[in-house]
Structures are given as C-alpha cells and as structure tokens.
C-alpha cells in the first residue's frame, strides 16, 4: 500500500516537472546568460525585467557573482556577456583569447555604511579615517579620528567590526582605488584590485552579503553601493572630498564627479573617477561596465545584445535614477552608440 503510494507520488512528481518544463519549452524564449558585478545588480535586474516585458521571448539571466566572477566566466565562455565595475586594463585584456568591448552603463557610488547601536546620526568620515579603519589602525568607534569631525555625536567605545568583500569584487576595486589615492600607506600595503589582502575584517559575499552582515552585526562598518544601503535601510556616512567638503552620495554629487570624464573617455572609455575634483563631487564613484565579446557567432544572440545595448542607452537610462544610479553623460552615450557597431 505504502509502496503504491510512493510509486504514485514519484510518478506525479515526474509528470509535473515534465509538463511544466515542456510548457516553459513551448514558449522557447531566447535565453542569454550573463554574470558579474553586484554593484549594478539592482538596476540590471530591473532592466532585464523591463526589457523582457518590452520584448517577450528574450530572457537575460544575470547572476551577480561579483566582478571577478563575471570576468572569469566570460573568459571561460560559459556566459554570453559579463559585467564588471573594474574596467579591464590591457594586461587583463591580453589574457582573453578574444576581443572584449567595454560599455559603461551607469554611475554609482560606494559609501561607508554602519550599524552603531544608539547612533542614528549621519557620520562624517575623512579619507584618513576610512583608510585607518580598514588598515586596522583605528579600532574603536570613539577614536579621535572619527570623533573629531563628528562633534555632537556621542560615539560608543565599542570595537569596530570591519566588513569587506570575500569575493572578487569591482566594488572592492573602487573602494581600494580610492583609498590608494588618499592614503600612501594603503597604496603600499594593500593596493587596489578586485581582490586584496585585507588587513582586518569579515568577508561578505557580494554587495548583498556585506549589507547583510552590516545589518545584523552591531558596530559594523562596510562599503556598499548606494542602492543597497537605501534598500536595506542602513545608515551611511558622508565622505570628505578633495575640496574638503563632506559630501553625501546622491544623484547630484555622483553626476558631478563624472562631469569631467566624458572628454577623457573619448580616448579610452575606461576611466577611474574616484577622488574627483569638483566642489560638490562625491569622492567614491565609479562607472560600471558591460563586457561584450566583439565577435558573436550566433546571429540572433548578437542582434539581441546589440538591441539591448541601444535600449539600455535610451530607454534604460530613464529608469536608473529611481534606483539612485546616475545617468551616463550624453557625450558618453554617443561614444557607446558608435561602439555598438563594432560588435559583429
């Protein structure tokens, strides 16, 4: 009796999964696979969803495994395109067996987010303080380096729990790139890359993981992209920029940071805009890039990707500001529209 029930049950499961997968198959959408940065994941996931609504039958499956993962899986050929906050330099491009084109998509900000019990105020951070916290030299929240620029906030004498990324991350690249520019000690001891030798701290997987750890661990500090701090209701601080003003990350201040970039990008679309000059520029911003192979054999895939890129540069750009990413400067859009023609 039991055996018959078990048999019927397993048969039902079989039939169920076969019919459902057959149903999904009958639509037979074009499936593209992509992987990479977690920095722009919220806007990419929104874009791919919107694109699918506009073009039913095209499903772009994007997995946020970190910029390092995006680069590696693109190299291994397991995904159709990748995404990275760190632009690929010539040395890295040389390790690929095929040519890669890099398309900036949005501008985002990386900010220090914290979870200090009893402190809901917006803290100010100097570049030196951030470097010293992540170097392990500043270990308590009420350290003079932090307290001196935050008069009026009573900071507890608790140990700072430093959170960084455990995976290969473009966000890490942006953060460490900034710290390298403002702290010679950081530059010589740690340097900047998607994966660095962190002096202290816990590792979280993805922007999501860092946000999760900060949210659940009192006295934690972590670095995440702006939208993650907002969507997870985390406090985040202001950072002192090169004009010695404490700037809060926002659409305006991020756009400001990229204002001089378009000219340089005409020569080379890869650019670092951390520690940008400009009175109201937020100092820790970055473009993020889609990594598209220059030659795509499958004609349908190629045309879909090119169409998506056009869509991204026009309709897509109108959707980024709701998620607090800044639009690409118009000049850059022009450069990219021309670059799309190079995809063959």
């Amino acid at each position, binding site marked *: 009796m039991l055996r018959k029930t078990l048999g019927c049950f397993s048969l039902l499961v079989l039939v169920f999964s076969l019919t459902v997968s057959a149903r999904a198959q009958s639509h037979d959408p074009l499936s593209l696979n992509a992987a990479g940065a977690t920095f722009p994941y919220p806007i990419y996931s929104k874009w791919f969803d919107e694109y699918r609504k506009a073009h039913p039958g095209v499903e772009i499956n994007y997995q946020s495994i970190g910029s390092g993962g995006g*680069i590696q899986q693109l190299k291994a050929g397991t995904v159709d395109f990748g995404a990275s906050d760190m632009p690929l330099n010539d040395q890295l491009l040389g390790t690929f067996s095929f040519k890669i084109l890099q398309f900036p998509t949005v501008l985002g900000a990386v900010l220090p987010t914290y979870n200090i019990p009893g402190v809901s105020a917006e803290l100010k951070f100097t570049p030196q303080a951030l470097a010293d916290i992540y170097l392990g030299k500043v270990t308590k929240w009420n350290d003079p380096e932090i307290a001196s620029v935050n008069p009026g906030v009573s900071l507890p004498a*608790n140990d700072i729990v430093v959170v960084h990324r455990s995976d290969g991350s473009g966000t890490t690249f942006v953060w460490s790139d900034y710290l390298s520019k403002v702290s010679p000690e950081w530059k010589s001891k740690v340097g900047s890359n998607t994966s660095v030798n962190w002096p202290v701290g816990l590792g979280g*997987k993805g922007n999501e993981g860092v946000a999760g750890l900060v949210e659940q661990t*009192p006295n934690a500090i972590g670095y995440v992209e702006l939208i993650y701090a907002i969507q997870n209701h985390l406090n985040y601080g202001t950072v002192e920029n090169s004009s010695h003003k404490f700037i809060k990350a926002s659409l305006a201040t991020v756009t400001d940071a990229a204002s001089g970039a378009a000219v340089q990008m005409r020569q080379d679309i890869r650019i670092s805009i951390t520690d940008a000059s400009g009175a109201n520029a937020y100092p820790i911003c970055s473009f993020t890039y889609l990594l598209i192979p220059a030659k795509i054999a499958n004609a349908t895939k190629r045309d879909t990707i090119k169409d998506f890129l056009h869509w991204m540069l026009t309709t897509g750009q109108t959707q980024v500001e709701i998620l607090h990413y800044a639009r690409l400067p118009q000049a850059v859009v022009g450069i990219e529209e021309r670059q799309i023609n190079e995809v063959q």
Partner: protein
Amino acid sequence: MSSNVTVVKRAPDSGSVRAFLHKLAVGDAVAHLITLVCAASIVLITSVLVYQLWTNSALSRHAFGWHFWTTQAWDPVFEHFGALAFLYGTVVTSVIALALAVPVGVGAAIFLAELAPPQVSDMLAFVIDLLAAVPSVIYGLLGIFVVVPFVRVYLAPFLESALGSLPLFKGPSYGVGILTASLVLTIMIVPFIISVSREVLLAVPREQREAALALGATRWESTIKVVVPYARAGIAGSIFLAMARALGETMAVTMVIGNEPRIAASLLAPGYTIASVIANEFTEATGSMYLSALIELGLVLFLVTFILNGLARLLILATEQRGGSHA
C-alpha cells in the same frame, strides 16, 4: 553467485534447440555485460574524478610544492597561494565539533543501546536519523539567524568574561567565526556518531554485560568498563566518519564562518575552511594558477576524507565481526 548457469530447456516441438540455447546464452551474456558495464562505470567515474583532481592541480603543486601547506598568504593578485589558513580553519572547526559531539553522541548512544527499551530505542534512533537527513543549507540558515546572534549576544561575552584571560577567547564578538561554525558542525555530526555507535554497542554480546553485572558492577560500570571498551573500535570508526563529514562540510560552514583567510588565536575570530574557500572563489578564479590552487585544496580534502572513511569502515567492520551477528 558467480557461476553463469545456463538452463537447457527441452523444447520438444522445435527443430531449433540449438537456436534457443544460443538465444538463452546470449541473453544471459548480454545481461552480464550490461550490468558489468554499469558497475565498471562507477569505477570509471571515480577514477576520472581522481585523475581530474590530480591533473588540474598540477600547476599549483609544481609551483608551490610543500610550501603550499605552510604558507598563510592567499593573494590572487600576485599569485601567492598558501593553504595554511584554510587548513587551520578546517582542522580547528572539526576538532572542536568532535570534542563537543563525541561525549554527547556516545552518551546518547549508550542511553539508546543500554537503557532504553527496544521500541523506544528504535523510535528515537529513527528520529535521530532524520536529523542526519536535514540538508546542510538549512543548518546554515538556522546558523545565520539563530546561532550567530546567540553567540554574539550571549555566548561570546560570557566566554570573554569567564575565560577572557586565555587568548582563545579574546577579541570582539562578531557572531560569525570559528566558534559558531564549530557549534553548527557539532549538531550536524552528532547523529552520525549516535547511529553508528548505537549499532556497534548493540552488537556487543549479552554475555559480556551479564558477566560484568554478575561480578557486581553497576549498570554504568558494566557499560563504561566492559561494553564500551569492547566496542571501542567501532566507536572510533564512528568518530572517523563524523570527522570526515565535518571536514568536508561546505554550506553551513560558509554561511557562518566569516570568510577571512587568516589564522587568529581567538576562537571568536572569523576564519575560513578549505571547502568554504572553494565554494566562494571557484567561479571567479581568474588565471590557471588560482584555479589550480583551489583544485589542489580540493585534492587534499578528498584524500583526507578518503583515508578517514576507509579507516572508519575497517574499524566498524572489525567490531561487528567481533561481536558476531546482531539483529
């Protein structure tokens, strides 16, 4: 069962006895062949697995040699890879988990084998086997939302205040860390110790217990001085099995260990294990050296669990044979 018996059927109305014989013979031979191929494919799969692990880690093995296991650095940028931190994390979490799990597990096994009435014992053993069936990711889920806050809010401060003079318990309590991972591992491996130890204890012949009791021992004394030593090989086997399981455990540990490739004196600090680093970094290992280093870690994990499992089986077999047949 190895003789291939071909039954000759007397077919009175056929001129094709030979053809029929032939068909029969072919049928059996075909069946033998098919099942042989399937059995051989198991051997093939395992060999290919070992071969792949060996060849794909060759780059790293030749570059670093034995230094791989004595260096702490894990630097993908400069391609300096050293496994010491992962070895430390793996060994320490497993040892602590065993230290906690063995007394509890053997204790429960003793209760189930010696004291509980047979039906109660069977039912409880059944329930404990279910604990072994819970997927690792669910232990991880509970680890993040139950064990981590517990360690951070209650256990770590308590340990720091009581034993804070020892470097083992110094440092801020993150919640995640080596201790938390060890606690989660403990719960995961206890069912294995209990179920194997219980069977091994049940296999000890009655005469041994009765002899001890006849000599005036209390129940406890007969258990701890006669039955358990008699079954000690099997219990040791269960410990090896549990250890192999703990060493290879990936998901639950990854979710609560803190992902920090560094050796720290304190148990409250974050760490990293071999299985966790493979899970976290495999998809992003750019460069063949990086990938090769990760696979070398996998190779060693495989070898260690292989040896432990082999020893465990031998010990359990030895005890069961010694004890004679059991129900």
